[in-house]
């Protein structure tokens, strides 16, 4: 199959087939054979009858749509009710609070000592030990490792607080931004 054959057969049935391809097909045995077989097939294709949608197809779609919208509206109303009261923190105060909090956490993270001065015995690594001469028992090693966990949680908490500086969280209900629910209630009243 040469390039013209390929182009003709790929464009078969196209209304805008170039003249040169049509001319080629009239002289090419391979393309004639393809066209013949294709004609037979095209005639047979309508035998495969299609499925039609059930009579209530559109109704079902619209019913499901209404159901989805109702569900979404219920969720939105619920969220609106939950967040109808917000706490107002001015942005600079919130930012300052977060910065102080983060600094305190960083100080906490780098200068935290596990053992109070003059308290428990520690070995050279600073770990709690039964006696300075004895190695740290496995159970106490676990305790020492666990002290890192709260530090990590504190750090994560600080990061979670950062977005709060961007929120205006009023303590009183907002008058201008009433939820759909409160609008509906107002209309009923």
């Amino acid at each position, binding site marked *: 199959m040469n390039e013209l054959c390929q182009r003709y057969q790929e464009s078969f049935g196209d209304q805008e087939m170039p003249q040169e391809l049509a001319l080629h097909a009239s002289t090419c045995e391979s393309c004639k054979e393809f066209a013949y077989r294709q004609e037979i097939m095209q005639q047979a*294709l309508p035998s495969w009858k299609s499925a039609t949608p059930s009579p209530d197809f559109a109704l079902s779609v619209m019913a499901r749509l209404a159901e989805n919208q109702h569900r979404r509206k219920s969720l939105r109303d619920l969220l609106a009710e939950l967040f109808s009261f917000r706490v107002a923190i001015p942005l600079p105060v919130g930012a300052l609070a977060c910065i102080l909090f983060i600094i305190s956490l960083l100080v906490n993270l780098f200068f935290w000592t596990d053992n109070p001065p003059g308290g428990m015995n520690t070995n050279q690594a600073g770990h709690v030990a039964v006696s300075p001469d004895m190695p740290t028992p496995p159970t106490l090693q676990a305790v020492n490792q666990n002290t890192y966990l709260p530090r990590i949680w504190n750090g994560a908490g600080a990061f979670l607080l950062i977005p709060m500086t961007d929120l205006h969280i009023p303590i009183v209900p907002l008058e201008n931004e009433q939820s759909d629910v409160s609008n509906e209630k107002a209309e009923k009243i």
Partner: protein
Amino acid sequence: MIEDWVEQCRNGQTRSFALIVTALQDKIVEFLYRMTRNREAAEDLGQEVFLRAYRLLDRYDRKKAAFSTWLFTLARNLCLDELRKKRPLWVNLEDAAMAETSSDPDPHLQARDAELEQMIATAVATLDPIFREVFILRDYQHLSFEEVAEITGCPVGTVKSRLHRARLLLQDKLTPALNA
């Protein structure tokens, strides 16, 4: 006209969507049926296509494609996803009901029609989905190469070569029986 209904839907007139569904349901369900060969699946997927279309209506850009083309794209993507998941189920080919759909009063012709229908449906079902979709969109839905390219997300050249491949495969399967 459909584009106007789409605008109305975007402006909150949900009822206009019913007009869109009514106008395009036949095409979409037919496409899905020919892809899956399963009436129930075609109907279910068809509903899902329209629900998804409503949800994503804001993403539709009328400058890029006709609404029906966009809808076919959704149908095609959903169908391919489902075919990947449920293929073994759907390959268990339907349809005993096919024989009952023949309207020919002659029982012999009726049987022959049913046999022919079964033969074509089976041959199309054996095509890989990427060839099948192109064949169905072009030879059954009579869409242009450009529309098929838009729906499948392939260049026109790829669509043409896939269609050619699909036709050759079907010719090999069907021509001997059709000639006989």
